[in-house]
């Protein structure tokens, strides 16, 4: 089999897009059947932020209009989305391990430099974390899951997401290479 990865060291090829897409569709459909909602990610990072904030700066966190009410509700991490993201961590680990794709590395440091790449990753994370709170969800929760139920929100999200991504990639040197 040819090496389908143009992003660094030779390694075992990924699944073709149609197979990954169908498998993702099956997981998404099962999630809706079993729970009535889709898959997510930033529901967890938001709760993790509230939890860590409560540990490090309890007064600020409790007084904050956004994070405070989450803390008041009790154990902020005790939620469906926490378990689901824990599953994501495990699933990614198992998949990468059995595919021989585990390795410590900074992807993209060859073109952006080590510090430059990490600063870009940090900036991107801040933008995405901030944006996800405005949209009340991320690519998984609003984009993927929202579009699967044919919601207007899902398709508006995907349109804005990809349009901004195309422009931002042009302006910032073409993404991770």
């Amino acid at each position, binding site marked *: 089999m040819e090496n389908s990865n143009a992003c660094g060291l030779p390694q075992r090829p990924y699944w073709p897009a149609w197979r*990954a897409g169908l498998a993702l569709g099956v997981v998404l459909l099962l999630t809706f059947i079993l729970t009535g909602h889709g898959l997510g990610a930033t529901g967890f990072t938001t709760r993790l932020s509230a939890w860590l904030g409560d540990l490090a700066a309890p007064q600020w966190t409790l007084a904050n209009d956004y994070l405070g009410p989450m803390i008041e509700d009790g154990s902020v991490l005790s939620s469906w989305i926490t378990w689901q993201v824990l599953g994501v961590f495990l699933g990614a680990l198992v998949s990468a391990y059995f595919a021989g794709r585990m390795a410590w590395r900074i992807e993209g440091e060859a073109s952006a430099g080590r510090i430059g790449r990490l600063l870009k990753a940090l900036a*991107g994370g801040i933008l995405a974390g901030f944006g996800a709170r405005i949209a009340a969800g991320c690519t998984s929760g609003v984009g993927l899951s929202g579009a699967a139920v*044919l919601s207007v929100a899902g398709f508006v999200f995907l349109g804005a997401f990809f349009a*901004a991504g195309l422009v931002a990639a042009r302006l910032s040197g073409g993404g991770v290479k």
Partner: protein
Amino acid sequence: MNGLFASGGPLVAVLLGFGFGFVLERAGFGSGCKLTAQFRLTDWSVFKVMFSAIVFAAVGLYVLEQIGLVNAQALYVPIPYLWAIAVGGALIGAGFAVGGYCPGTSAVGLMTGRIDALVFFAGLLIGTYLFAGFFPQLDALTTAGELTRGDRLPELLGVPEWLVLVVLVAAAVGVFFLGGWFERRARAAGQV
């Protein structure tokens, strides 16, 4: 409903999340390089995978509704606060292009040993604190532009659901053809 084995309980959540993370890694979505190649238009995996998953789940839900196995009223549909969704979606798209990941894929990337994905993930928390700090100013934006004509495309457009699904299936096929064309062109030009 709150037992360990209930469908809304921890075990089902971990299993579904496991499938999600496993498939994303197999698709190559733990790699910021492969993900952002979509924006360079040299690798269309992100479009192809997302589109086929959306179409599969949407058609599946429709069929299960028709035979009475799924109650459409019970499915969660996000509220169309159009400004909030568009601004938030654009910021996440920009963050994706600059940082290499979106929130879910950074969780996958960091588990495969990518330090940059771990840093992106830490950035998500900082972005959340930033939002929380400016919440009094941002609160109104999170519910801005509510569309009241319908939460879903069939109701908004006034067309039957099967028609929307037919268009989506055709669009997905189109994405595979268009993406394939761009990918062959990038290979021929030595960009991949």
